């Protein structure tokens, strides 16, 4: 860890492809840090994190970035979007580099479909700064939908939302994680929101599990 301070110790955790995992626990215990460990945004002081055979601790920063771009879709609690970009541009940010840019390449269609699936078509050209928190979360989910990643990580995606928005965002995330064309998608959500429990196969109580 950057500070050299031991924040917490987690036992072995293996998440299978296609699994839906909910990590619950009190605030400030390290749930977000665990999520960032999985995404390679943060490296453990001891032990290893392995994603599909790639050991993150042995990858350099660029390789971890490429892995994130290729395999991860991340929804944060807030600060998801680049405020000066429009909703559609924020979604476009996560599209694979391999997808050619320019008109007629299908990028616009992918972005439009993703925004449509989170009911944000009308706000496609609105700047992120002008969107409400609920709308921003939807755009963040649309970004994940557009990228079609193998692993979706969501950090308290519903904590600041009202019931209606929370349900919508959660169902959109579950939709994004549903297997498409035979490809299993893994969903790991960190939340202390009791409303989301019912949708997960596996629930880890972080406070009891980690120390």
């Amino acid at each position, binding site marked *: 860890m*950057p500070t050299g301070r031991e924040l917490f110790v987690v036992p072995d955790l293996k998440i299978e492809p296609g699994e839906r995992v909910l990590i619950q626990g009190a605030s400030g215990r390290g749930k*977000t*840090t665990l999520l*960032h460990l999985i*995404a390679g*945004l*943060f490296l453990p002081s001891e032990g290893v994190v392995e994603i599909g055979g790639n050991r993150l601790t042995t990858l350099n*920063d*660029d390789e971890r*970035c*490429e*892995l*994130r*771009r*290729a395999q*991860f879709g*991340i929804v*944060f609690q807030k*600060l*998801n*979007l*680049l*405020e*000066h*970009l429009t909703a559609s*541009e924020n979604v*476009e*940010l*996560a599209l694979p580099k391999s997808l050619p*840019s320019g008109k007629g390449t299908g990028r616009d269609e992918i972005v439009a479909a993703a925004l449509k699936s989170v009911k944000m078509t009308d706000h496609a050209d609105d*700047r992120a700064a002008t969107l409400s928190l609920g709308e921003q979360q939807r755009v963040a989910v649309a*970004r994940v939908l557009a990228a079609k990643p193998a692993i979706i990580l969501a950090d308290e995606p519903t904590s600041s939302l009202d019931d209606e928005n929370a349900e919508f965002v959660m169902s959109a995330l579950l939709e994004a994680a549903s297997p498409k064309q035979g490809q299993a998608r893994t969903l790991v959500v960190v939340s202390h929101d009791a409303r989301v429990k019912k949708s997960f196969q596996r629930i880890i109580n972080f406070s009891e599990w980690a120390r």
Partner: protein
Amino acid sequence: MTPFNLAQKSLTRRKLSSCLAIVSIALAVACCGVLLRLYLLMSQRFSTLGRGGDAIVGAKAGGIDILLGALNSEGRYPDFLPYKLFETLRAQQGVSFEDGARAEPDYLRATIPFLYFAKYYNYRAVGTDGTFFNRPQADESPTFREGHQAETPLDIAVGASVAEQKNLKVGDEITLRPWVSDQNLPSGDGSHSAFLKLKVSGVLNPTHSMWDRMLYTTVPLAQSVVATSPGLNDRSIWGSSVLNYFLIYLKPRGFQPLKDLINKRTVAQSIFVLDEKKNLEELTGTGQAVGLFVSALVILLGGLSVASMLTTRFDAMGTQLAVLRAIGYKKSEVAQALLWEGFLLGLSACLIGMGLDALLFPIVRAILSSSLPPPELIDASIFASSPVWAAAMAATIASVVFPLLKLYRQDVHRSLQ
């Protein structure tokens, strides 16, 4: 989305912040460009001095006044010297004084008469003779591109800049306004007698000096104009038999005896050209150094303000850079976006700054016209400001360095918490 697209959108979407930064840099670029060009002009101001021999004799005045009046066409209309003195020196006649002293001016190689008498637009016309064009040092002799020197009182030869600016050629007739005093300039009432109509007899080759901006005719014609000047008797006890300066070529060690003769025994004063040029350089060098220091200070302060503004701008983007990194953008890609943004910002600002510089400089130059060399002689083109553009571009891009360093040290995990 490519780094270039990210930069472009970051610039165009943050309109107020971008405009403020661009306008600030553009103003700094324009001001610094104008200052730099002025400095260059001022530092070259006296490089246009005409080449006029080793010494100059003029009416009693400051040495620098005589130097600039004779060789740089500057200042008020100079006082007169007796033509008799010129004749005595040119003939190298021995002179006896009442105290028994005697001077033998055999140390002179050439004595050139010089008498201002008219203006053609802002160009000064001078009465002189063949020695002006045939000097002891051939490389200092103005040569003719076409035609010849004035040989009759109706002829006048023109300098290269005058001919070029006014599109003159041999045979053209031009009208001059008499100028023999600053107090009694003719009103230019349109009467034929107030103006002189002369024919161009020759056009000089460029000398890249003040000689290019003058017109040359005979001493008798110049003196005839002086003769008609109102109140001449109050200004000259010699009537119109006068000159303003003698340009003198000396034999080695000739200045001291000339000085002894002229400064101590006559109404005139002699100066040694090299000494006065040195004095002038020392005098103006101090002013230029102060000017350069102030300019450098303005540039530094402007640069620091802009760098501070840009650093704040890029620093505020920390979280957004973290989001980009979290969704898989490499450090190098984000760095490219930042550098592109700095480059586009600097480029836009420099282009606007160039436009402002091009617009403002002629105005400033016109305001300071008498303190700067004329555009025909020394041109400070817009490209003289190019070091400022390069510095502005470098400074703008360099202002991205701090955010870049932060980016490379950024802990994305903490930034997103």
